[in-house]
């Protein structure tokens, strides 16, 4: 009897903690959706800021974020994928693999502001790329690299060995097997990693603060060397700079909603693809 009461008590405690978690997160999402909806309109998404950031839209920030993310994926995908292929398909299972894996996990745990410092010192100053899409994109690329490597490697390792054996038995070389058999089979998993990395790169602020983003830029970015506005940085700047906090907060709500929906849709898509293809091998 006593045991049953103790169990009841602790299970209630656990349930309450889950409810509190749900409540906290729901409140945040509720506020952003409620206030964000009032700010968002077609014009908000497609027009440029007006009246010193107190009216108009945020299209330059959306375009800027898009450029940064595209650059980041463009740089990190080939490198990350090549690394994953080597680790999974070629590398002898020895201490080198362990070292590389430790390197990947350590790189993943570096604080984002430190990536910002690295990007500033190396890309902006040392290579002289200045505050630009190139500098920010490269910085974000290093930030998402561990993501791409880990998810790609998981995807490759999920491809059954019989696939490779069948191909090798037909006389294909190892590279032909990888290119024509293993990579296509691992594509959904690799895609999951790319999608998650897009979400991550789109939402990071600290790495682009010193390397790419500005509060206001007139006109579209005309080359990879131009500085840009970016959604997450725009939210920060709207809340901390400028002269009209009330009107700026409304715009920031709109930006936050766009970013939240973008990241949520991307990660739902990733979860969906992953679950679908996981079950396809289990069958």
């Amino acid at each position, binding site marked *: 009897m006593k*045991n*049953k009461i*103790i*169990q009841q008590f602790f*299970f209630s*405690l*656990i*349930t309450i*903690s*889950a409810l509190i*978690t749900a409540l906290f*997160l729901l409140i*945040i999402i509720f*506020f*952003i959706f409620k206030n964000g909806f009032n700010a968002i309109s077609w014009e908000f998404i497609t027009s440029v800021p007006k009246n010193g950031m107190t009216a108009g839209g945020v299209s330059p920030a959306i375009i800027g974020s898009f450029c940064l993310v595209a650059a980041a994926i463009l740089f990190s995908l080939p490198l990350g994928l*090549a*690394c994953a*292929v*080597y*680790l999974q398909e*070629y590398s002898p299972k020895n201490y080198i693999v362990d070292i*590389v894996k*430790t*390197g990947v*996990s*350590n*790189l993943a*745990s*570096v*604080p*984002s*502001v*430190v990536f910002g*410092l*690295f990007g500033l*010192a*190396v890309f902006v100053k040392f290579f002289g790329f200045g505050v630009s899409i190139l500098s920010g994109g490269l910085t974000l690329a*290093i930030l998402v690299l*561990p993501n791409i490597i880990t998810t790609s490697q998981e995807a490759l390792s999920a491809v059954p060995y019989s696939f490779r054996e069948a191909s090798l038995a037909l006389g294909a*070389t190892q*590279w032909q097997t990888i290119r024509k058999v293993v990579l296509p089979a691992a594509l959904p998993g690799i895609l999951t990693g790319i999608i998650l990395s897009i979400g991550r790169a*789109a*939402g990071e*602020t*600290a790495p682009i*603060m*010193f390397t790419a983003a500005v509060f206001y830029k007139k006109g579209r970015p005309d080359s990879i060397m131009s500085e840009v506005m970016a959604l*997450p940085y725009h*939210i*920060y700047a709207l*809340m*901390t700079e400028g002269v009209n906090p009330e009107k700026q*907060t409304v715009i*920031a*709500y709109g930006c*936050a909603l766009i970013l*939240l929906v973008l*990241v*949520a849709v991307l990660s739902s898509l990733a*979860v969906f693809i992953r679950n679908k293809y996981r079950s396809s091998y289990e069958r």
Partner: protein
Amino acid sequence: MNALKEKVIKSILSITAFASIAFLIGIVVTLFANSLTALKGIDQIQFLFSSDWAPYYSPAEYGILSMVISSALIGITAALVCIPLGIGTALYLNEIAGSAQRKILKPVIEILAGIPSIIFGFFAMAVLAPFLQNIFDLPSGLCILTASLTLGIMTIPVITSIAEDALGFVPIGFKEASYALGGNRWQTLIKVTIPAAASGIITSIILAIGRIVGETMIVLMVAGGSLAIPTSILAPARPMTSTIAAEMGEAAYGSLHFSALFEIGLLLFFMTFILNFISERISKKYRLKLGQGR
């Protein structure tokens, strides 16, 4: 011909495998190289143990003690929020929620774990800070409590997601053995399942603490920015990360100030490096143990 091609491809790929190590080393070297001016130009005892940070005074002063204390205090208070709630939620998902509920909630938690920190920071600034200001009758809602609560809430899904994985990996036979011996569900959970998943749970906590210590935008927006050593959790503070972010824009390239900010970055890097090292060690042990169990 084919053999040559294979060899070339293999060697190219083997070079790329070291990219992440190269970047890691590159980051250390870059941070160190840019910190050199500060390492030489600032008395390091004073740098670490003085709380006077006044880069614009003449002579300028560079002491980071208050920032380190602020970082630690915010880290501890945020951990007090995210550890009980994160693990409680993981236990709920694992033990109490039905499989239908879990099927929906697990992906939702994963999606929540991916929400950018700027969104939490923005919410904290627009909603939470004014709310706490009213409740506690503060001069400003931007204080340690606001930052810690926000960081804590942000990292709940991180802990829940990893801890639930660890709980899920515990072989069902462990639980069945306990039930067969007459243990009820709570006893089984606390005496069998949680100990078996302990290293995974600890790993999740360490990862969350790493996230909290390294997080920049939230503390930059809502911690208040005061350089005094904080005396209570309702006081404003300025941790290491937000100092870098707040002052880097104004520091002249190559100056002592610029270099001192890089040295803070260097310290930050080693702090997260050590945390990661510990969690790697623990999770390696855990893989071995459960590997035999299954």
